[in-house]
């Protein structure tokens, strides 16, 4: 009998399986106390092939954040500006291919002038940009100083001589006409804020010395691209300095800047923008619920629920630097007294948000137990197995669900004595061949969440009948929201989908086939980093694809 000193193959497999299960269990049971994060591999990830891009228009949140960071948090930014358009689920993608309407142009003009007037009429705000004392209404030297200082921040690059002269002329000519240097300055600021150089993120590019025949973003273009990706706002002085000195041209310098940016408090704004767009949380401002059926749903609940979800992500990514997939399973969340009452737990504070651990024996856990998701992906009068299932498929697993055929009546039958629950009413989706193809992918998932009504309150019965939340997700059985969340957490498409969505948000494009190898490599980096989001964002920001100005291939 041969003895190799090794266990037989079957036993080795068993041991390996046991170790794997033990490691998974250990991960699942990990407390919130931070453990040593997995060492992060470094170096550029993926190839220099990227989708073609155009100039991205600032989103509304980017516009507001840019004004705040250039002029100060005291400036009230008018809310009536051109709305964002989402493409493929992201405003950042829509910003690449949307135009400005005639009405939008007027709104940008009015907003620019309103902001300009606020700044010149407020001594504190004015003092931040006006460092000289104007000797006359048309003091050109003083106007030029302001233009040089402010223009570089607004355009996110040094101004050309022609731009400086044009803006200086506006200030001096208007100042002379209105007999006030400050009034002229207001028009000058307004002019800058209406410029395409501010409202758009130009991407002309320059020859890439490392990839012949390709273009890469210029230092200032890359700084802008990084800033709106990681901060959802305009570059700071340090980032513009890095661009000016060429630091962003090589991996080491770029990585150092990205690391600095991710360590900044402003990175939370970038994460919030990503999550808000990815999960469509902006729509929580607009949802309507039947006030007779859902007496506890009030207008402030939607924004409040969005804030809860954003805080959970912030906590995972910045406070705990944890496996971001934990968002599906975590009992830790942040609630106001109102949200606490929705979750049937004691409010941890009398006002505002405070952290809590949801009950261990409850059905509510993670993203799928949050009011933001449950209320948003539901109808005004009821829950929706289809909308919730579609969310899971499209947003979390990156499976595209086609829209229903035109002229198809998508209304569900009303509850009857023989069909009181949603599960009974959606049976038609599985028997009608026009519906079954897609609904068999969505509805079983959504039915697993029927223990939550159309605004996210927990329930055990629907119309007096005990709810059956069991189902199967791609071959994995679940018996309710908790095991469904676990199935999604463990799903082989979940982590790659997070990678894809983050890349989509970062680049402002829908990934093309040529970018698939880069996405695969980025996901490998994500996995190697313990599914932590910051290393993934860092890998995307320093990837050759992110630095490459794509061209039609």
């Amino acid at each position, binding site marked *: 009998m041969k003895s190799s000193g090794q266990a037989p193959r079957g036993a080795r497999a068993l041991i390996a399986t046991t170790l794997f299960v033990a490691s998974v269990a250990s991960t699942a049971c990990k407390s919130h106390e931070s453990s040593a994060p997995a060492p992060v591999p470094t170096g550029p990830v993926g190839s220099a092939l990227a989708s073609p891009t155009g100039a991205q228009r600032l989103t509304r949140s980017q516009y507001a954040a840019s004004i705040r960071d250039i002029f100060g948090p005291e400036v009230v930014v008018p809310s009536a500006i051109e709305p964002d358009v989402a493409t493929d689920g992201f405003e950042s993608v829509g910003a690449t291919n949307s135009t400005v309407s005639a009405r939008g142009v007027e709104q940008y003009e009015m907003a620019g002038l309103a902001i300009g007037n606020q700044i010149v009429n407020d001594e504190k705000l004015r003092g931040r940009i006006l460092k000289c004392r104007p000797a006359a209404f048309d003091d050109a030297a003083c106007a030029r100083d302001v233009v040089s200082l402010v223009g570089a921040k607004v355009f996110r690059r040094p101004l050309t001589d022609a731009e400086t002269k044009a803006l200086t002329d506006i200030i001096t000519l208007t100042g002379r006409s209105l007999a006030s240097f400050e009034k002229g300055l207001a028009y000058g600021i307004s002019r800058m804020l209406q410029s395409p150089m501010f409202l758009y993120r130009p991407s002309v590019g320059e020859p890439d010395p490392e990839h012949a025949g390709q273009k890469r973003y210029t230092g200032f273009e890359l700084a802008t691209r990084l800033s709106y990706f990681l901060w959802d706002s305009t570059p700071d002085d340090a980032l513009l300095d890095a661009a000016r000195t060429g630091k962003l041209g090589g991996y080491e310098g770029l990585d150092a800047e990205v690391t600095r940016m991710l360590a900044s408090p402003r990175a939370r704004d970038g994460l919030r923008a990503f999550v808000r767009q990815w999960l469509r949380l902006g729509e929580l401002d607009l949802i309507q619920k039947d*006030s007779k059926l859902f007496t506890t*749903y*009030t207008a402030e609940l939607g924004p409040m629920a969005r804030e809860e979800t954003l805080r959970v992500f912030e906590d995972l990514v910045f406070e705990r630097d944890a496996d971001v997939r934990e968002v599906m399973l975590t009992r830790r969340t942040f609630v106001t007294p109102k949200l606490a*009452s929705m*979750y*049937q737990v*004691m409010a941890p504070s*009398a006002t505002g948000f405070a952290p809590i651990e949801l009950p261990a024996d409850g059905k509510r856990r993670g993203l799928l137990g949050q009011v933001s998701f449950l209320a948003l992906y539901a109808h005004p009068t009821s829950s929706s197995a289809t909308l919730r299932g579609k969310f899971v498929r499209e947003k979390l697993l990156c499976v595209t669900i086609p829209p229903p055929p035109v002229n198809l009546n998508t209304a569900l039958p009303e509850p009857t004595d023989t069909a009181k629950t949603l599960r009974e009413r959606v049976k038609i989706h599985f028997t009608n061949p026009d519906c079954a193809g897609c609904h068999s992918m969505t509805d079983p998932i959504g039915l697993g969440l029927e223990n939550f009504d159309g605004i996210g309150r927990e329930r055990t019965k629907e119309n007096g009948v005990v709810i059956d939340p069991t189902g199967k997700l791609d071959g994995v059985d679940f018996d309710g929201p908790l095991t469904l969340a676990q199935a999604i957490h463990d799903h082989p498409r979940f982590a790659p989908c997070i990678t894809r969505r983050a890349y989509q948000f970062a680049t402002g494009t829908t990934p093309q086939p040529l970018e698939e190898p880069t996405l695969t490599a980025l996901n490998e980096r994500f996995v190697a980093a313990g599914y932590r989001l910051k290393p993934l964002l860092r890998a995307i920001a320093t990837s050759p694809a992110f630095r490459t100005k794509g061209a039609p291939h």
Partner: protein
Amino acid sequence: MRGALLPSAILLAALPSCSSSSSATPDPTCEPGPNKTWVISALSFTRENPVGVSPGFDLDHSVSRTPEELSCGKLDLTGPDGTPGVDNQLARVIPLVEQQVGNAIDGIIQGAINDGRLTIALDLLNVNHAVDDRCVDIEVKLGQGKPSLGTDGTLEAYQTYDARKEGQLLSPGKGGKFEKGVFTIGPFPLRIPIAIFDVSFTIFIRDALIRFKLDDDGNAEGLLGGGISIEEVADGVKNGAGVAPLIPQIKAVGTLYADMGYDPNIGKCSLVSAALAFKARPAFIRR
């Protein structure tokens, strides 16, 4: 109404006790359990409608079909479900009071509940099973905090209230039970401080009984009853603006309808039997 106020000690002794050492086999439902709290979201006086019919309790465990001395000649009412022996003379008093002060009493109470001036918490102790549980005690407390109202104009469920510092624990009651989803407890002395507008006083409900049922959402609906001294209520409200001229009439009505607390020395009753209907939402009280 035959009996005067029964000594609480005798009644309590007759009720099942969680701490009874005489029990041969300990009741598993008497194991320590979690507390569950309900906050009263609606409280209203019951009325006699139609004549002779009103919700309420049989406080004296007796049916008075003919005038009797111990109930000062007051006849019992019948419950809406036909239950005889209901003691609820206040149901007959309220319409008379409303003739004097208008039909705003229930509205005033509801307003006080909705804006957080009258937050009565029923804190049930050791609730292991809110359907059948024979060992549940109660603490009636006052909460504080501006409640959140739903679009139906009533308190939302599962809100968190702070216990009011002064007189936090109003009345402890022992020996309550859940039976087929209906909770009952009493008699026990119940004191509820009231502060509405410029009037502040404590209603003392003698031999209080509480009974409520839970629905699928955990909301409670039931009755709260016992004996009330109209004399005390009149004294409590006498300093309210415009109330003073009404005090003699209120006291007279109280004397006229008193059916409990018979004093053989003077041959009079001092208390009016009462029942208030209430709804309550599940809630939390910070202790």
